[in-house]
Structures are given as structure tokens and as C-alpha cells.
């Protein structure tokens, strides 16, 4: 009799657990940022921005400042694609100082406040700064992502800033983004 009661209790518990599991998995799958799309944009930034001759050889170093799920996506990219025959190296950084020597610097949302300091730190150096958070292009990044009202992913272009870093952006990339100056 007791055994039957226990089984009934266990069954109820099981039901609750499964329900909670259902809700939990549901939460996991709700609209989350698609960093694969961000990665694809970044790969195209790399392809359609021209670095000075001296920086066009050897490995292409992409630094990610701050914790961001994009690091994993960029590593997948680096393991499967090259940039004009160059290996892509992903460097995970926690401080601006660690980013020295990179070709492209990605500022994750959590490190957005660093953009002004990084602007100073990378002044006149051939580094493309890409901001995850909207508005960073106005504050010193060369490019920053924008999520439009209908969830389309776009990017702002600070052409002046890009040129100050001795980089050339192709007209096709310019026509794709939103030039803010």
C-alpha cells in the first residue's frame, strides 16, 4: 500500500520535473542573439576592408574583448576558413591591453565602456574596431552592429574613423551599411 503511495508521489514528482524541464528547455530556445550571423558579418568585414600592405601578411588576429558567445562562433570560423590564404587567429582578451597586435578588435557588449580608451590606445594603428552594441561607431569604433525594428541585423559605419586607422572600406560594404559620417 505504502509502495503504491510512493509510486504515485514519484509519478507526480516526475510530472512536475518533466513540466519544469519543458519550460526550462522552452526558455533556452526563445529568441536569443544569433552570433553566427554576427560572425558572418565580421567575416565579410575582414574580406571587404583593406589593411595596409605591412599588415596583410601572416596570421590575421581577431581579438575579442570581454566574454561573449561570439568567441565560440569565431573559433568555428577560424577552424574552417582562411582570409586570403591567411590563418585566422582568435584571441580572447579581458583587458584592452591584451588586445595589442590584433588586426580586428571586437568589443563585446559587456566591454562597451572601453571604446573611448581603445580609440586612444589604437590611434593611427591599422586596427578595425567592431562594436557589438549599437552606438559604438559614434563613440570611436569603425563599425558597430544595429538591430532594426523588424530584427534585421545591420551595421553603422564610421568611415572617418576607419580611414584614420589607415584602412580602406570597399564601396560594396559601404552600400550595405549605414554610414554615419
Amino acid at each position, binding site marked *: 500500500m505504502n*509502495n503504491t503511495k*510512493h*509510486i504515485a508521489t*514519484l*509519478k507526480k514528482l*516526475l510530472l512536475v*520535473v*518533466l513540466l519544469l*524541464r*519543458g*519550460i526550462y*528547455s*522552452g*526558455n*533556452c*530556445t*526563445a*529568441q*536569443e*542573439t*544569433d552570433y*553566427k*550571423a554576427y560572425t*558572418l*558579418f565580421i*567575416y*565579410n568585414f575582414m574580406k*571587404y576592408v583593406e589593411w595596409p600592405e605591412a599588415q596583410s601578411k601572416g596570421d590575421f588576429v581577431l581579438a575579442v574583448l570581454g566574454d561573449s558567445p561570439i568567441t565560440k562562433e569565431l573559433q*568555428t*570560423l577560424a577552424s*574552417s*576558413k582562411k582570409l586570403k590564404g591567411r590563418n585566422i587567429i582568435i584571441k580572447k582578451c579581458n583587458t584592452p591591453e591584451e588586445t595589442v597586435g590584433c588586426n580586428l578588435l571586437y568589443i563585446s557588449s559587456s566591454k562597451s565602456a572601453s571604446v573611448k580608451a581603445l580609440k586612444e590606445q589604437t590611434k593611427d594603428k591599422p586596427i578595425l574596431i567592431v562594436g557589438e552594441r*549599437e552606438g559604438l561607431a559614434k563613440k570611436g569604433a569603425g563599425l558597430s*552592429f*544595429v*538591430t532594426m*525594428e*523588424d*530584427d*534585421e*541585423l545591420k551595421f553603422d559605419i564610421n568611415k572617418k574613423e576607419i580611414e584614420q586607422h589607415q584602412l580602406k572600406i570597399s564601396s*560594396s*560594404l559601404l552600400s*550595405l551599411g549605414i554610414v554615419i559620417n
Partner: protein
Amino acid sequence: MNRIRVFFYATVLWFTNANLTFAQTDTVAVKKDTLDYYDMSLDQLLKLKAHGVPSELEKLINSLISVASKKPLNVRESPSIVSLITEEEIKNSGARDLIDVLRLVPGIDFGVDVEGQVGIGVRGNWAHEGKVLVLLDGQEMNEILFATTQFGNHYPIEQIKKIEVIRGPGSAIYGGFAEYGVINIITRQAEDINGLTISGTYGQMEKDYGRRNANISIGKKNGDFAFSLSGMIGQGQRSDQTYTDFADTSYNMTGNSSLNPKYFNAAFAYKGLSFRCIGDFYDTKVGDGYGNVIKSGAVIESFNSIFYELKYPIQISEKFTLTPRVNYKTQTPWLSPSYDQKTAYNRNANRATGNLTASWNINRHINFVFGTETYQDKATDYTDSSFFANRTQHVSYFNYTFFAQGLIKTRVVNFIVGARYDKHNAYGEAFVPRIGITKKYNKFHFKALYSGAFRAPAIENINYADSGGIRPELTQVLELELGYQVTRKSILTANVYDITTNNPIVYYTDTTNADHYTNSGHSGSQGIEAEYRIKDKWGYVALNYAFYTVANKGKIHEYEVSQSSSSLLAFANHRLNLNACWKVAKGLSLNATASYYGSRWAYTSVDSLGASALEKIDPTFLLNFFVKYDTPLKGLSIGAGCYDILNQKFKYIQPYNGGHAMLPASSREIVFRMNYNLNFKKKN
């Protein structure tokens, strides 16, 4: 042993469930996809979404609407409590007319007015006269003599692309007919039609046909030029039941309750310049007049309107657009050709409107919309013996408006602040502000809204005003909506509201059946609306619940229920709606819609002293089923279904004590539908 077994099943199920998620990120598949993904062209990049490929539900809740803000915003951040009804939902459900579509929207209901006409109610409040604005392709359908809109086999349901419903106030944008709500109907435009579409509906009630309607649309967009021409002609009947008045006199509605629409909609656009003309000619046959059965037999009651619009948005700069617009509409509502046109009600009204709206996008996050509008109303009486209050057969009124709205989007919240000022030469001023805060945070969203709203007295409200004159009624509405996207395929939204209307315009008839309007007392309602929606490739289920109470609100004698402090006449405190679609095979869908009405209150008889007697009407459950099939013949779809399967024989109740008995709706109706699209050329 049993415990072990239970534990084993739990473990297996847990991991089975988990694996369903993991299956989406299978390494090999992803690697292949990713490689293809990296080789996407720049043009393909433009189509990428920040949150990945949207689910069917996300496509819906991220779709942009501008009904609540003029500036397009997604449904979850739009600063009103909004319902969006898509063409797909309308077609799948087999909806016979707008009543079938709108009664599934939380808080929307219908009641009977005079002369057999069915009007709309919102959140427990009778809103038929000027409290809900019905827009069709931007044209204000409400007739301007009484500000009413008639429902029942009226508008071309098969030509609708989408309906955006504001279930709350819209006056700060739309003015004096949008006090309690806005129904924005958008029909299929040139690029949607892109060819020729013909469709037909036949409905068979128990005793006679319910409707037989035919539609045709032709449209094409070619470079800068676009045109569309659409038409509808039909015959319908309100009911095949028997209407019995308070004096126990009856008439058979079969053959005596026609709802016959004729409609056309022509639109031309070249670059930014657009012109539209809509004709709406709605003939009804009614045998119940002001409540008593018309002894001489049912009579024709016609509502005729023609609308014109010319609009040209001028792009002053990349950030600044100026849109001049002119509208003209001429309307002859409540016309009874069955009577002598020299003695019966026979009035025409027209409105000429000029509007100049500026939209200034200071940046992506700050937008201002401001402008001015002016209109002139003119009405003429064509009888030999009746006059307007000015003792002539012509009246003319003038109104001017200023409006402004600011929308500021920040990372934390979106703010919307707006106001509208109207000044009318007969009834004076109305000023309505609104403030809203909205935001979505990934899965969660909220809206906190305060809105002032007003109802502008229409021409006959002024004409039949009591000696003290008539003023706009002013309303204040507080609304709070919370939403949570439970999964990528389902969302739960719930909102509460509080409506307070001061000095509402109240209609009553005196002992001689003469019409009167007066501002009187306070009214309003409070309530909750909630909806759970699942949408996926297999179909969708939307279940909503609406509740209102007037227990804490002022009461207007004509609308109140003496036996219940929480209810108003005609409208159920509790409503439950279901709209479900199951796509069982390619092109084949099974659809069920249902509406549960809790108890309603109605005047159903008069006592020996001539006083109307109240009765509590039992709950009603309307269940409908429709099968839609897209045939292998390209462009041809057919459907069949049954409305009111349980044969409840729904009855519309008069929401005020006007001496009208309950008006029967149709009995169980079998519906057949055919739709054929012939595309000129495949759309890009």
C-alpha cells in the same frame, strides 16, 4: 523496483527532451551549414536577422505595425494594446464577415442598435456611435451623421490583407471617433494582388441562404506605377429565425433581413503620389424598426458612402518627410427607400478634410510626428418637412486640429508622448494627451500606457442635443500589458485596463420615439485580457480570455443592469475565444474557432406598467469548423465549413434600454468558399 523503473523513465525522458534541443546543433550538420553560410553573398547578408531565423510566431510578433504610433514598431513594443489579424488567419478560419473575425479579439463584441443594425462594443462598453473608428485602407468608414458603422456581411472579408485592432484609445492619433478603439483594415494592394483574384462564398442556414458573395480584384505594380481595382457584390441575410418584439409581435427574418453589400476600391499610385476611391453601398432589410415589428412589413435601410483620397509624401530630406493629404467623403446613411423620400429620414453628409503631417527622424531613436488637420462637415436634409436644429435643411461645421507625438527609443525603454487638440465651431474644444512606455527584453515585454481620448459629437448628436447643447465626452484610460515569450513558438500576453469616461454622450428616445442626445454622468469599465498563442509550421492555436467589470465605475441608467453591479447590458463579463489551425498536409488545413459567452443581461419584455424587464441570458458557446484546401491547380483554393455547429442561434442584445428585443443571428450555417489567384508574373 518500481521506483527504479520510474527513475529510469524520468532519466530517459529528460535526456530525450534535452536531445531534441541538442539535435538542432548537430556538429556535422552545422559544419556543413556553416560553410555554406560563410559563402553567402553581401546581398544575402541583408536578410539576416539578429536573433536567427525567426519562428512562425516570431515573424508575427516582430512584424511592424504603425496603427498605434504612425512610426512602424513591432507588435510587442507598439504603444497600444494591439491585436494583429493576418490574411492567413482570416482565410483559414473561413470567417463569413467581420463579426466572425472581430469577435475572436479579446474585448470586442457586438450588439443591436435600432432598425436591425448591429454595432460594436469594446471592453463592455457600447461603442457603436462614434467610439470605435473603422478604417479601411485609411478611409474612415464611420458615417458622420451618427458616427456609426454597420456590421454583418458588409465589408469584403476576402480582400483583407491584415487587420490591426487597437483595443484601447486612439484619439491622440485618430481623433474623435477613436475613443475606445481603432479597427484598421488593410486590403490587398497592387503588389499583393499582382494579377487577378476572384472569389466566392456561399452560406446556407437551416432555412435559407446566409450569404452569396462574389469578389474580384485586379492589381499590378510596374516600376513606379501601381494600380488595383477591387469589387464585391453580395446578398446575405441576418437570420432565418423569428424576431419577436416586447409586444409579442413577430416577423420571420427569412427573406426580411437582407444584408446586401456592393463595394469597389480603386487605387492608383505613381511614385509617391497616390489616389484612392472607395464606394460602399450597403442595403439592409429590417422588420424591427426601433424595437416594435414594423406592421407594414420589412423595409430597406441603406448606407451609402463614397470616399476619395489624394496623398503625396514629400521627402524634404533624408530625415524629414512632409505629407499633404486631402480626403472627401459623401455619405447617405440610414436611408429608407421603402418610405416616401419626402417624409422619411433622408439626409446626406459630406466631409472635406485637409491634413498636413510631418515626420522627422532626428536619428534612429528619436522620431517626431506633428501636423494639422482641418475638416468641414456639411449635411443636407432632402425631405419636405424636417429640419436641423438651426431650422434650415442645411448645416455646416468646421473643425481644426493640431497634433504632435514624440517617440524616443532607448536601450532601457521606449517613450511615447503625444497630444491632440481639436476645436469645433459647434461643440468647442477637446484636448487629449497620451504617454506610453514600452520595451521588450528578449523574451519579456511590457507596455504601460496612459491615454486621454474623446468622442466627438457627430452631426446628429449636435442636431438632437438637449437644450443644454452637447460637448465631447472625455475619457481617460490606463493600460498595462505584460508579455512573455515562453518558447520560440509560443507567447503569453496579459493586460489590465481602467477606462473612465466623463459626461458620456447618451442616446435615449422619449415617449414619442424622438431621438435625444445628452452628456450625462460617468461611465467606464475595468478588466483583464489575456492571450496564449502558439504558432509553428504545423499551424497555430490562439486562446484568449476577456473579463470586464463596471462595479467600481459610474453607471448610465440606459446601459446599467439593476440586478448586477458589475455588468452592463448586452455584453458578457466573461468571454473566451479560440482560433486554431492544423495544417494536416501540404495545402490542407483544419480550422476551429470558438467563442464562449458568459451570462449576459437583456431587456426581454415589458411589464403591465410598460416598464422593460431584465433577464439573465444563459451562456452561449459558438463553435465553428472550416477546412481549407489549396488544390494542385495553381492559385485555386477551396474551403467548406460550418458556423455555429451547435446551433446556438446567437442573439444580439441591445446595449441600452431602447425597447428593442434580442435580434437573432443566423442559425447553423454551412459555408463554401472558392478563391482563385492568377498571377501576372511571379513576384520577386
